[in-house]
C-alpha cells in the first residue's frame, strides 16, 4: 500500500514509517514545509491510499491542515499526536494545554476500526502536552485515557482518524496492531 506521510518536523516520524514499511507499505515522507503545489503533484503521481499526518510542534502545522482540508473524503487520513490536533483544527475544533497528561496512558476505546480486537485499557506512550477540548460535530471520540482526556477521534463519514498517543513508541505495546488494523480498514475501502 502506498502511504504519504506529512512529517511535522520529525517527532518520531520514522518510528511510524518503519512500522508501516514492515507491513509492506511503500512510504513517501514530505516535510510540512513543502509547498501545497508540490504536495498536490506528489499525490497525483504517487496516488497514495493513505495520508498520515505525523506528530510535531504544535505551532508549526505547515501544510498539515491544508492537506487534511484538501484531501479528506478523497484519501483516508490518519493523524498521530499533533497530527490528530491538526485534523481537529482543520475541522474548526480546538485543542489546549492539558495539565493531566502523563507519558504512560491507559487507553479505553470503542473497539471499532483501528481498535478492533484490542483489549481495553491498553497502555500507550503519550508525549503530547495538548488535548482536544472542542471536538468538531462531524467527529466522534473513539478513545480516552484514565482522566477522560480524548485520545482518539474518528470522522463520522469520511475515513479520517486520529490518535493522541504514539503507536510507534516503545511504551505502546499494541501499536503494531493499531497500524495493522488501520491498513486492513483502508484495504476494505
Amino acid at each position, binding site marked *: 500500500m502506498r502511504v504519504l506521510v506529512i512529517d511535522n518536523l520529525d517527532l518520531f516520524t520514522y518510528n511510524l514509517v518503519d512500522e508501516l514499511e*514492515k507491513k509492506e507499505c511503500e512510504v513517501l515522507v514530505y516535510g510540512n514545509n513543502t509547498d501545497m503545489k508540490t504536495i498536490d503533484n506528489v499525490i497525483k503521481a504517487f496516488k497514495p491510499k493513505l495520508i498520515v499526518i505525523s506528530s510535531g510542534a504544535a505551532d508549526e502545522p505547515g501544510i498539515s491542515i491544508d492537506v487534511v482540508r484538501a484531501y479528506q473524503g478523497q484519501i483516508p487520513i490518519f493523524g498521530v499526536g499533533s497530527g490528530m490536533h491538526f485534523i481537529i483544527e482543520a475541522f474548526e475544533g480546538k485543542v489546549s494545554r492539558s495539565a493531566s497528561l502523563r507519558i504512560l496512558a491507559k487507553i479505553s476505546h470503542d473497539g471499532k476500526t483501528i481498535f478492533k480486537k484490542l483489549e481495553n485499557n491498553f497502555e500507550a506512550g503519550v*508525549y503530547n*502536552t495538548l488535548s482536544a477540548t472542542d471536538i468538531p460535530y462531524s467527529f466522534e471520540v473513539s478513545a480516552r485515557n484514565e482522566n477522560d482526556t480524548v485520545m482518539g477521534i474518528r470522522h463520522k463519514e469520511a475515513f479520517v482518524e486520529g490518535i493522541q498517543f504514539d503507536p510507534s513508541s516503545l511504551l505502546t505495546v499494541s501499536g503494531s496492531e493499531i497500524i495493522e488494523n488501520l491498513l486492513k480498514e483502508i484495504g476494505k475501502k
Partner: protein
Amino acid sequence: MPQNSGLVLLLELVKEAKIGSIVPVYKELNEEIDALDYFRKLSNYGNKKNSILMQDNEKSFGSADPCLIVIGRGNGFEIAALSNTGKKFLSFIKKDFKFCDKAIYKKDRVYGTLTTTKKQVSEQEKLKQKSHLDILRAIAFKFKVTEKPFSPCCGLFGTISNDFIAGNENLQVNEDKLSDPDYILYFLDNMFIVDHKEKKTYFVANALVTDNKKEDAYRECNRKIISYEKTASKKAPKARKYKKKNMEVSYNTSNEEFSALMRKLKNDVSDGNTLYASPSRLVTANCNAEPLGIYSKLKDNNPGSALCFINDGSGITVSCGAESFLSVHDRTVELGICTSRIQREISKDQADNDNRHEALLKTKEDEIFFNLMLLDDARNSIARISEKGTRFVEKMFEVNKLPKYQYMSSTVKGTLKESLDALHALSATANSAGIPKASSMQLLNKIEKAKRPLNSCSLVCLSPDKELYGMGIEPMRIKKGIACIRAASRVFNGSNDEKDLMASDERASRFLEAIKSAGGVK
C-alpha cells in the same frame, strides 16, 4: 598481515597496490605506552599546531603530523595540504569538487563555496541533497584500503558543529564570540595507536598510492615510523611556567536570565511547540596553564571518560565525556545515548548510598520520562537511515558505573540502507538542541545569546573503508588564554528547572576545576 619486521613484503604490497589505494604500514610494540606522555613529546606539550589526541578506555589515537586540514565556515570551505603527502593527496582529488558552487585549486590548497541544496523533495531524498558533507565524503572515502589490520588506521578526524550538520543556515546569526569554523577535520595518514585492552602500541603510517612512485611512498612511511620510534625515546618537554593570576569566571547569561529562559522554554513545552530543549549559556574563564596540562587534569579527575584534545592553530578543543556515540561498522549503524547522570559515592561506608542513587536513577518519574523520550528519538533517528524492520534497541537503560559517576545508557542498532553511508548516518543522528531537532533549534536560536559552533559538536573519525566512529561532545574551546565552555541544561515536561540549572553548572565546573588544578590561577 606482515609487520615492520617484514619490510620487503610490505614494500611488495605497496608496489602491487593500485593507484588510489592506501596501504597501512605499521610497527607493532608488545607494550602499552603511556599515550598522554607520548603525545606530550610528539606535540611539544600540545603546542604543536594541528596535533590531535583522542582517548577512551579501549584505545588512544594521536598524531601531530596530519597530511590535510579541512575547514568549513558557512558556505565556504578550504582543504589545505600540511605535508608532501598532503600535496599529493590534493593533486589526486583536485577534480573531485566540481559539484561545489566554486572550487579553486592551488598547489597546496583547494578552496571554494558550496551552498546546501534546498529543493522541495521527499525527506528521504533530503538526506542525499548536496551539502558540505559531500566535501568530507570526497576526501574521506577517496582511497581504497588494501589491508585492514585494525580500524581506523587512517582517515578524517575532527569536529563538526551539530547545528551545522542539522542545516542551520536559515537561522539568525547570534553573537559569535569564538568566531570558530563550523568544522575542522584532519586527514591522518600517520598516527600512534595504543590498544589499552590488548596492551599494545602501533606506530602507523599509510602509503597513499597516488602515482607510480610507489617506492617513494613506502620510504616516506618508513621515515615516519622511525620518527615515531625516536619520539618514544625523547625526553618529555616541560610545561611552561605561568605566573599565577586570579581566576575570573563569567557567564554570558546571568542565573536570573537563564532561569527566565528555561521558564520560557517550559511554556513552549506545555504549548506543544517542542518536547525537549537543551538550552545553554557560555561560561568563560581565564586559562593560565598549558592546555594539555588542563587536559591531563581532566583525565585524572574523570577516570573512564572519553577525552579529546585538538590544537588546530586557531584554538584548542578539549572535551571530556560524551552525550552520545555513533558507529557505522560493516553496514551496521549503532547509536548510543548517555542520559541521566548522577555522582557516585564509592567509599566502603557509602556503598549503600551509592545503591540509593542508582535506584533513584532507575525509578524517578522525570528521569524515566527523559530516558524514554531520548530512546524513542534514537529509535527514530536509526529508523530513518536503516533498512526496514532492522532497527532495534540492543541495550535499554543500563546503568554504567565510572569511578566518579554513574549514568544511564541505551543503544539502538540497525542495518544502514543500501543507498546511504556513514555521513548520512551522522547527518540523521547529530543533535544537541532537543526534540524535535528543527523546532528546538529554532526556539533556542531565538533566546540563546551565542552561536553554537564547535562548543556543541560531533567528534568524528571517518575511515576510507566508509566506517565511522563518532561522539556527541560539548567541549571547551581555549583561545588566547580564554576558555569558553557551553553549560547546557534540559527542559521537558516534568523537568526540574532549579535542579537542571545546577546540573548545567556542574558540567561547566568539571572544566573549571581542571583549569584551576592545572595551576596558573588562584
